């Protein structure tokens, strides 16, 4: 358990999924995972997955600290254009250094 990584989690409406993928490619992360969410409640109201505009995804990347810093800078730009990305970051250990970067 020596390999520290940052687990960057973004909760965002599924309409912005392609935007997130482009972001990940721009920053050049080694991978990402997308999980659909059934229901979400927040400042923009209840989202219940009845249609694409009403659905959240969890966009998750496990990356190095450096990549995380780049990522945060890019996310900030998107947030500045009023896109409501909800971002939280967990410390994580990875079994294989080369799996996630």
């Amino acid at each position, binding site marked *: 358990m020596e390999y520290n990584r940052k687990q960057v989690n973004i909760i965002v*409406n*599924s*309409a*912005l999924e392609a*935007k997130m993928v482009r972001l990940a490619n721009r920053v050049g992360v080694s991978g990402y995972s997308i999980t*659909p969410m*059934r229901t979400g409640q927040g400042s*923009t*109201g*209840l989202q*219940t*997955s*009845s*249609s*694409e*505009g*009403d659905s959240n995804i969890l966009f998750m990347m496990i990356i190095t600290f450096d990549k995380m810093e780049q990522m945060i800078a890019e996310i900030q730009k998107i947030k500045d*254009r*009023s*896109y*409501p990305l909800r971002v939280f970051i967990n410390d994580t250990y990875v079994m294989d250094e080369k799996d996630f970067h």
Partner: protein
Amino acid sequence: MNLSSLLIPAVLFFALGFLAKLIKSDLKFPDGMAKGLSIFLLIGIGIKGGVALSQAEFLPALNSVLAALVLGFATPILAFVWLNKLGKVGIFDSAAIAAHYGSVSAGTFLVAIAFLDSMGQTYESYPLIMLAIMESPAIIIGLLLAIYARSQMAKLNNNSDPESISMKSLLHEALTNGSVVLLLGAMLIAYLVPADNLKSVIPFYKEMFMGVLSLFLLEMGMEAAKKINEFKKAGLVLITFGITMPIVGALIGLVVAHYWLGFSIGGVFLVMVLAASASYIAVPPAMRMAIPEANPSYYLTLTLGLTFPFNVVVGIPLYYHIAQALVG
């Protein structure tokens, strides 16, 4: 207009879903079911439209398309002025909501068709083509309004560099929208495919259509009821708008369909419903992307929680009554 005309499965399943959530039933649809059903419905309606198109005469078809474009561009502008200038609703929220009301709800339109069918009332097939056309213009208007809004904001903040959006990406947003692609794509396919080849998919898309619609409306009834709690946040101006805008829309549709297009009662009624309805599937993701400054809970609450139920339960018989009075 008697009440029994509302005793059609589509409306009753909607009511059942609505009621289920009101009495706090734990009834739930699996994730993705509503989306799957709406994909089916859009393709089914697209096929209907394509068949209609292949049998249509050129001039009335062209006229319908033009009328659809006029309605699709004019009603969102009306809605925007109403909301922003009269109602003092924020400029971005006004733009986003306007786009929803300028676009159409396939679900509402289908209930209207079921309504006519249940009464044995015939109708022109042109409104089917108009439905496919009317999804996009309002999205474009919404984006243009947002650009305008951003430049207004920039002026206000003495900020000289509003994020600009190109004409190309604007059209892209409006024409690659998933619902638009399905509707226009299925329409084109049904138009191109020789009638004999199309037969193989007819049992699926035609005979099952109303059954699938009943399931979809059951789910949408539940979704509409879930949005009710959010009303308090919307405020009186928006709630009033969510009920009066459809009526105004219907009247505009009436004028266009009767005086311009010269449709029969059934056709006039369907155009009224198109103009009265507001999108809650195609437009929300487009606005999430294009006008992030607007609050999504406003437009989803209004269109799905208020206007959709209003149109299904009150609007449809009302518009039919009016169409009958004027045209019949």
